[in-house]
């Protein structure tokens, strides 16, 4: 089965996946000859983003040193930002007199950092049971739950990540389940609703989990899965159901002659999400530490005809590097965490560097509200480990792990993850070299809007939660 994968479902308010849209056109032609029941398909986007790019007058950042985010280092560069996008970029640009210019005098800029594995909002601070909303561990397959419905937008962790230069985050459900639910990609901006943070048009993801966690959670309850073979059986059972479900809808859509109100398939939220994966709409982000399990997940994806976007926490990514390169799957990794579980025992600090060396898509992630505040340092450590073994990785190449490659794993590399004309103006200005331990994000723009300014208290947003805890007007780093 060939899946045509679309990066951006363009028309989410109606019928958003390619195959249904195509089938509808056929159905539309057929309808000229018959007057059967009009087709109504489930709304694929019932919680649409309400985010809009704030109106800003064009401005320019001049005399910057740039890590472009997709592998280049540029010196003395000017960037013009207009309507949230980079409209011009180059050396000695002619900037209109009326355009406000910020002369950064050789300071470094990078694209906004992207964390593709965060639980901010679903496991907020303070970490209390009332807000512990990241793991629906009541059944091993909960594809029907959506992380966005758990996100608490006032989580004070978001603003800390922003101060670290993180502009886009993928919020995922936890890994207690085989299939944990949908993830959501957010812009890291203050909002009273999650819809206000949702990245418009970003594909949904589905969180799956290999290995120890699901079998521990359900094994302790004496239900499947209690073993790794139970894990595999659990996923496959779900994909078989999803295949059947998809078929029933496909038949309903295509077979206009037989269609009637009475044979409209019954909606099943769980299977609807899984069918979305089979149709190439929803991207698999798979918690999977070990190479042997990655290989099995890949075989299973071929058995059922879907693709895997990324393996997260790929502590054994270096063992799987060639496989990841061949299959076009991103390895999402930490710089150095290990030893908390057996499946995280075979850590090498050169993991990210080696996955990159094998020409696979290497991505850094935090999975942690402390580490997300300094992804640049995590990148520095991973680069340094690679260089120590002689891999000769430049900062321009290394930064890709938290920019372009991260965007690619989310299916958003056309919009974010690098600095180039036409891309979103998600930009971080650093106080020192971005990979220095002494560096801070000095200014952070999202879609050309200044969202954080280390030098200006009034552009350091704080959540409702902090009012009365942090004194009015005080800054708490």
């Amino acid at each position, binding site marked *: 089965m060939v899946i045509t994968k679309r990066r951006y479902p363009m028309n989410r308010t109606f019928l958003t996946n390619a195959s249904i849209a195509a089938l509808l056109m056929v159905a539309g032609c057929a309808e000229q000859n018959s007057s059967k029941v009009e087709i109504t398909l489930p709304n694929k986007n019932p919680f649409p983003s309400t985010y809009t790019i704030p109106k800003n007058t064009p401005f320019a950042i001049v005399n910057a040193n740039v890590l472009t985010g997709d592998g280049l280092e540029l010196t003395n560069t000017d960037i013009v930002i207009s309507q949230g996008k980079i409209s011009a970029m180059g050396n000695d640009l002619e900037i209109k007199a009326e355009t406000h210019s910020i002369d950064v005098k050789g300071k470094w800029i990078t694209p906004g950092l992207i964390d593709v594995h965060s639980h901010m909002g679903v496991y907020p601070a303070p970490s209390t049971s009332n807000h512990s909303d990241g793991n629906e561990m009541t059944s091993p397959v909960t594809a029907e739950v959506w992380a966005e419905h758990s996100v608490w937008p006032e989580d004070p962790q978001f603003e800390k990540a922003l101060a670290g230069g993180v502009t886009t985050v993928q919020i995922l459900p936890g890994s207690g389940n085989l299939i944990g639910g949908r993830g959501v990609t957010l812009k890291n901006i203050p909002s009273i609703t999650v819809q206000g943070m949702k990245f418009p048009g970003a594909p949904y993801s589905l969180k799956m989990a290999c290995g120890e966690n699901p079998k521990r959670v359900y094994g302790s309850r004496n239900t499947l899965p209690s073993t790794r073979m139970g894990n595999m059986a659990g996923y496959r059972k779900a994909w078989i159901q999803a295949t059947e479900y998809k078929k029933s809808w496909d038949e309903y859509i295509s077979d206009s002659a037989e269609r009637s109100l009475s044979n409209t398939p019954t909606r099943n939220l769980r299977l609807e999400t899984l069918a979305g994966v089979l149709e190439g709409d929803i991207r698999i982000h798979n918690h999977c530490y070990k190479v042997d399990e990655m290989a099995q997940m890949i075989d299973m994806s071929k058995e059922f005809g879907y693709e895997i976007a990324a393996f997260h926490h790929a502590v054994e990514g270096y063992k799987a590097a060639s496989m990841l390169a061949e299959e076009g799957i991103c390895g999402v990794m930490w710089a*150095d965490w290990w*030893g*908390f579980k057996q499946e995280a025992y075979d850590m*090498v600090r050169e993991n990210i560097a*080696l996955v990159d*060396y094998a020409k696979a898509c290497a991505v850094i992630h935090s999975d942690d509200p402390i*580490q997300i505040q300094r992804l640049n340092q995590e990148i520095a450590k991973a680069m340094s480990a690679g260089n120590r073994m002689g891999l000769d990785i430049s900062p321009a190449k290394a930064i890709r792990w938290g920019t372009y490659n991260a965007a690619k794993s989310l299916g958003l590399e056309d919009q974010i993850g690098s600095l180039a004309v036409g891309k979103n103006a998600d930009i971080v200005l650093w106080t020192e070299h971005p990979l220095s331990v002494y560096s801070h994000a000095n200014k952070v723009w999202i879609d050309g809007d200044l969202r954080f300014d280390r030098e200006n208290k009034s552009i350091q947003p704080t959540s409702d939660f902090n009012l009365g805890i942090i004194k009015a007007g005080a800054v708490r780093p």
Partner: protein
Amino acid sequence: MKKILFIFTLAFITTSVNANSLLIKNVDVYKSNGMEPNTNVLIKNGEIVAIGKRIYETADRDIDGTGKSLTPGLFNSHTHIGAVEVSAIGPTVDYYSDNDSVTAALKIAEAFNPNSTLIPHNRTHGLSHALMIPESSTHLFSGQVALVQLGLNPRVIHDSLAMAADFTEHGFDLSGNSRAAALVELRQALDDAKDFSRNKKAALAGDHRNYELSYADLAALESVVNGSKPLLVHTNRASDIRNILKLAKEFQLNLILSSVMEGWMVADEIAAAGVPVIIDPINNLPSSYETLGARLDNAKLLSDAGVKLLFTNTSRSTSHNAYLVRQAAGNAVANGLDKIVAIAAMTSNPAQLFDAPVSGDIAVGEIADLVLWGGDPLELTSEAELVMINGEIVPMESRSLQLRDRYFKRLQP
């Protein structure tokens, strides 16, 4: 036969060290009182014998230290190194006990595993010593703190440096879920320890009143109540820190505070009491209601008030990546702390406070316990290029490096 072999081995090691004098040239040397740029350091028999611009002696081995830096070997003041292998595998985890009849008497040193894979991994990145701190699982007192050295023959240096107690929300939970009750329990235990100390003979003969804690636990607390052994208390909220300071004064305890995420709010009081603190300077989140005041410049504010700092690093890396205490120090500097003060918080301060066999300093006459870094000592892009622990060069070998080399080979065409 065994004995002969042992003597031979010892002689061999000594000879090999004796034969190797080492001259590190043009290196920035971070001493406890400041940085000496571009100087030379001569090491003989594992001892620093000369530091200076002009050293005319030759050595068996020269290292060009241009653009590099030298610091004392790193200490991490809150780890479980040697008492954990894989955190999720219970039988490898010995830094807490669910046995509620063992509290203060627990010595984490007795669980130390010198063959742990964590040790080579950490020492190749510059960690030479670590504190092993037991954690509370059933009682406010978690047991006795140890100092371990991570050299060629990893060993326990002190098996009972301090008594650890938990006065955080976790501890309160063990004490009936009220910080007020926890304080009563602490006070009662200290009073009992005093009473036991005065009436030991009668108590052991069964001729005295009963105690809540076992005799073994009370015996372990004796040195705490007589002031000879520090009480190391984990606590976070400003008001809790105040209560512990008050308690320490009342019982005339030798106190060390740990965690103190809201320490900056009561920094002057901590300084006035002369109490050192073990902190992770990176921790800036209101992860619980007792840490709502957490901030990234806690280390700076405490230091400004005159508090002596000892560093550790973030919870998920406490033992497996204890060497990342250096990243914690770097971030403290990025947030305003003086660089020399930050380095002291992971070298000379713990070495002195915990009476280590090395000074945590680089000075003539001291044992060479030091790290040569590829650049600035706190930059994450500076790798440890040479590590000497207690006068011996440690091999750059670990399980992790072996895995790396095995799989790098397989990636070659």
